[in-house]
């Protein structure tokens, strides 16, 4: 992709009327969205009892993913920030209800009402500060917090994302965990740059079920003892365990270079701007300092 859309403009401006139409009439995009939505629905692991569920489609756009949900027999509610995209959805007479809203402002849904949530190619838009009043971390917090609340016990949220880089993916994951979600990353076709797709599967509540493994080029699940790197194995699981706090004893040796490097790394992980590590970091200064 020449340029990432989220670097060009905020979503409600990028997806104007022309772009919305172009997006929806491109058969390639329609096809990709349908496949991604099918896979996301699969990863939702809804009970196979034939009872339709009520799902949330976050960043539903022109309703491409919503149509897949309807085809699978479920009812859905879609949220999107672009009025033009939603207008196209209305024209296509999608079966779900549509809301014009900003996921970074919180979802505004009552607790426990949603049976599952999917989001196709939308969550990465949250990581960009499109207005000076935006702070991506706060928006992600509002989004994941409100999502966690509105999901029913045992429900899942599956996001297909195109993270720009590792930092962005970590930011998204961290915010999700802080909101109380457990879960993991499922990567399909990890070795192919074209076909590689990432799905963040988040679980709610104490129901412990196994997260599916990602697909590899033979369309089988990847075995977990394949590769040791996070990028290559099908699954990375994480959970935020409550560690009992240890009482800190004051360190008699003072603050060593190692300690400094560790603290800087911690600060970087939080998202702060930290000067790069160099040979001067933690260097012994003259006694007058």
């Amino acid at each position, binding site marked *: 992709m020449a340029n990432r859309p989220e670097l060009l403009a905020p979503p409600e401006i990028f997806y104007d009327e022309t772009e919305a139409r172009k997006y929806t009439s491109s058969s390639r995009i329609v096809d990709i969205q349908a496949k991604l939505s099918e896979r996301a629905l699969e990863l939702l692991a809804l009970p196979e009892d034939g009872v339709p569920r009520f799902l949330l489609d976050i960043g539903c756009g022109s309703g491409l993913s919503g149509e897949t949900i309807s085809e699978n027999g479920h009812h859905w509610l879609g949220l999107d920030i672009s009025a033009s995209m939603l207008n196209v959805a209305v024209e296509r007479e999608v079966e779900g209800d549509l809301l014009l809203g900003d996921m970074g402002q919180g979802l505004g*849904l009552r607790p426990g009402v949603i049976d599952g949530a999917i989001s196709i190619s939308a969550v990465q838009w949250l990581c960009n500060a499109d207005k000076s009043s935006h702070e991506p971390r706060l928006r992600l917090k509002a989004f994941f917090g409100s999502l966690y609340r509105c999901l029913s016990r045992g429900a899942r949220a599956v996001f297909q994302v195109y993270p720009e880089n590792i930092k962005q993916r970590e930011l998204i994951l961290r915010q999700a965990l802080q909101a109380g979600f457990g879960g993991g990353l499922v990567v399909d076709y990890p070795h192919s740059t074209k076909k590689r797709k990432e799905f963040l599967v988040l679980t709610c509540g104490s129901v412990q079920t196994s997260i599916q493994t990602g697909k590899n080029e033979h369309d089988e699940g990847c075995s977990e003892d394949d590769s040791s790197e996070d990028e290559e194995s099908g699954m990375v699981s994480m959970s935020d365990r409550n560690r009992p706090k240890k009482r800190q004893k004051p360190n008699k040796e003072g603050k060593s270079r190692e300690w400094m490097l560790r603290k800087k790394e911690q600060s970087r992980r939080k998202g702060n701007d930290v000067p790069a590590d160099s040979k001067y970091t933690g260097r012994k200064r003259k006694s007058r300092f």
Partner: protein
Amino acid sequence: MRLITHNMLSCNIKGVTNGFPLRIEAGNVIKKEVDFNPDFIRHMFAKLEWKALVEGARSMGYAELPEDSPDAAVLESDESFLKKLHHALLELHLEEGALVCPETGRKFPVNKGIPNMLLHEDEV
């Protein structure tokens, strides 16, 4: 927007504690038929706020729902009740109108069936 969605929406403005249910100002309501699935209706019943649903339905011009939330026996056996619930939840569409926050009075306009829930900068 249908009542199934209205029953889940609450006002998201910062500081609002009593933002549910949103009052419906109905401008234009249309009916669209949807296939009846009793399992889905029973599944959704547990999640509904009954009073909000009855009031919302009345604002949209449908007054056939009973005032009191029915008990489990009715849900299992009474198909005509399930059909009424189905009609109220899935077949009534608010095309034009507004949703009003009960605490602040802020209006969220509804156009072409889409409620505009975007908050202003100072409401977040």
